[in-house]
């Protein structure tokens, strides 16, 4: 085998790039292998019709202001030797959880949500304070404590089931790989990252963050190898010795860090059949992106993100009998952030996300696929405008991605956005020098993925 690396990283998403920076900074010979022609993974970007689009990013969660010493954001900036200004994060204006007849507004100041709960659920104020302190107490990364049922815990804390559903809605939408219920560990992480820390966005979108990560990785001597898909991880006596690429070339490595996903990595190690496995995640989405000829605020939409659900029960599962389930969704406007000096994006943008069924989308013939995209663009917009103002008469451009798109560019089974339901917190595999990081290790979101890459690199590849 030619070319020996200290560490080979599979996947140039947030976690792989972050791990790469750590290892290259400490003088390892590091290669990042990415099958796609560009970087980003689940948080990528593209350009179409002269416009820039983000794929994953609605908001960077875990936002803490400049100077904060605690929290994942400051930790990752320190670990990667970035300045706070590098990510140019602008905080959100205000977001909203919208259920029939009840709206709970929240912002990056938890007091707004507290006052909203006092207004709408006066008898649940003490319970919410109790929940908050239980979330703050949680710091156990042991697998058993992580996997406690969140619905069970919340059922013991709150007496009003509607508030439980409303609190679960945004937290599940932004990071729950399980169907219906949520791991308590994941809930605590999401509660902190969204309600106690908050939403922010760089004006230039996710490409700004990725650009900084790649630039740093390369400046430290790291090698980013695009269009280098890994077909197989080669092992001898329980240890990986290298990889075989899609084109048959072989690369040698002392250890391998894979952000390809748990099942996907198992497949590279020859452990899973090509088709059919229950371990992969099921939750995937369609997203419509509408470009407007005005700012969304002109139409009466000044919320940053609206999480809506059209009944008192929030049903978090992929639809069984249809392409999408439009009972719940997320409306995000990247315009509605507090950008520095009151700057604003040139175009208005509204993104609407709905839960989708991967098998049904990927099973469509090409002509049907194109038609269904148009059909579901309209349907998901119809669903959303029950909770936000009508915007379509101001549309000057539209685009849309589906579970099929996500799978095609990320190679994650089922186009699963939040990975497998069972997280691998310790990052280990059956091969002693192969580790997983990223979504399937346990952390989601941009900050979470970066922290995952850093911590697995620190734990196994540096010492």
């Amino acid at each position, binding site marked *: 085998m030619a070319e020996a690396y200290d560490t080979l990283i599979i996947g140039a998403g947030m976690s792989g790039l972050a791990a790469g920076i750590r290892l290259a900074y*400490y*003088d390892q010979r590091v290669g990042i292998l990415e099958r796609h022609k560009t970087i980003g993974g689940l948080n990528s970007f593209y350009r179409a019709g002269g416009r820039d689009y983000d794929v994953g990013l609605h908001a960077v969660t875990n936002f803490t202001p400049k*100077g904060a*010493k*605690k929290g994942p954001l400051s*930790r990752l900036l*320190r*670990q990667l*030797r970035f300045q706070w200004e590098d990510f140019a994060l602008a905080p959100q204006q205000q977001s909203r959880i919208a259920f029939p007849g009840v709206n709970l507004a929240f912002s990056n100041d938890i007091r707004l949500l507290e006052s909203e709960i006092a207004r709408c659920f006066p008898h649940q104020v003490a319970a919410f304070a109790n929940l908050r302190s239980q979330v703050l107490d949680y710091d156990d990364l042991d697998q058993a404590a992580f996997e406690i049922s969140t619905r069970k815990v919340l059922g013991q804390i709150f007496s009003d089931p509607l508030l439980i559903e409303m609190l679960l809605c945004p937290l599940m939408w932004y990071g729950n790989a399980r169907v219906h219920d949520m791991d308590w560990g994941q809930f605590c992480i999401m509660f902190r990252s969204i309600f106690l820390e908050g939403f922010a966005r760089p004006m230039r979108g996710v490409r700004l963050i990725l650009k900084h990560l790649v630039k740093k990785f390369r400046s430290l001597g790291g090698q980013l190898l695009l269009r280098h898909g890994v077909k197989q991880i080669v092992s001898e006596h329980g240890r990986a010795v290298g990889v075989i690429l899609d084109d048959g070339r072989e690369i040698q490595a002392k250890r391998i860090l894979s952000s390809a996903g748990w099942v996907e990595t198992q497949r590279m190690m020859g452990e899973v059949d090509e088709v059919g496995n229950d371990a992969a995640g099921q939750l995937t989405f369609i997203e419509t992106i509408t470009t407007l000829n005005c700012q969304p605020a002109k139409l009466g939409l000044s919320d940053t993100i609206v999480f809506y659900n059209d009944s008192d029960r929030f049903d978090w599962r992929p639809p069984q009998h249809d392409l999408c389930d439009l009972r719940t969704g997320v409306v995000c406007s990247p315009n509605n952030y507090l950008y520095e000096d009151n700057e604003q994006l040139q175009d208005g943008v509204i993104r609407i996300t709905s839960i989708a069924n991967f098998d049904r989308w990927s099973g469509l013939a090409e002509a049907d696929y194109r038609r269904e995209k148009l059909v579901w663009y309209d349907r998901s917009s119809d669903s959303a405008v029950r909770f936000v103002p009508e915007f379509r008469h101001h549309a000057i451009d539209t685009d849309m991605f589906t579970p099929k798109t996500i799978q095609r560019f990320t190679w994650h089974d089922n186009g699963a956005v939040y990975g497998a339901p069972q997280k691998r917190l310790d990052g280990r595999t059956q091969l002693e020098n192969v580790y997983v990081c990223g979504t399937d290790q346990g952390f989601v979101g941009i900050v979470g993925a970066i922290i995952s890459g*850093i*911590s697995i690199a*620190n734990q196994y590849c*540096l*010492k």
Partner: protein
Amino acid sequence: MAPEEIREVIIEILGDIAPDEDLGSLDDAVAFREQLELDSMDFLDIVMELRKRYRVQIPEDEYVQLASMRSTVDYLTPKMSEVAK
């Protein structure tokens, strides 16, 4: 390297790891953890920076020696006596 020089090196490393911390008022006898917002990832970086900059190897079970500035300097003095600043 003399103990005072080792102390300077550690201050320099801390400044890189935690640029927002005020290191001027550091009390050498008190644990870093009690004065600075350092977590285990930051402690790993002290070890890694010493390895990167001066090729000093610190085994994992001796990381505890790096608790305070005084204990760090005491621990590193014999290890770094031959190292040039």
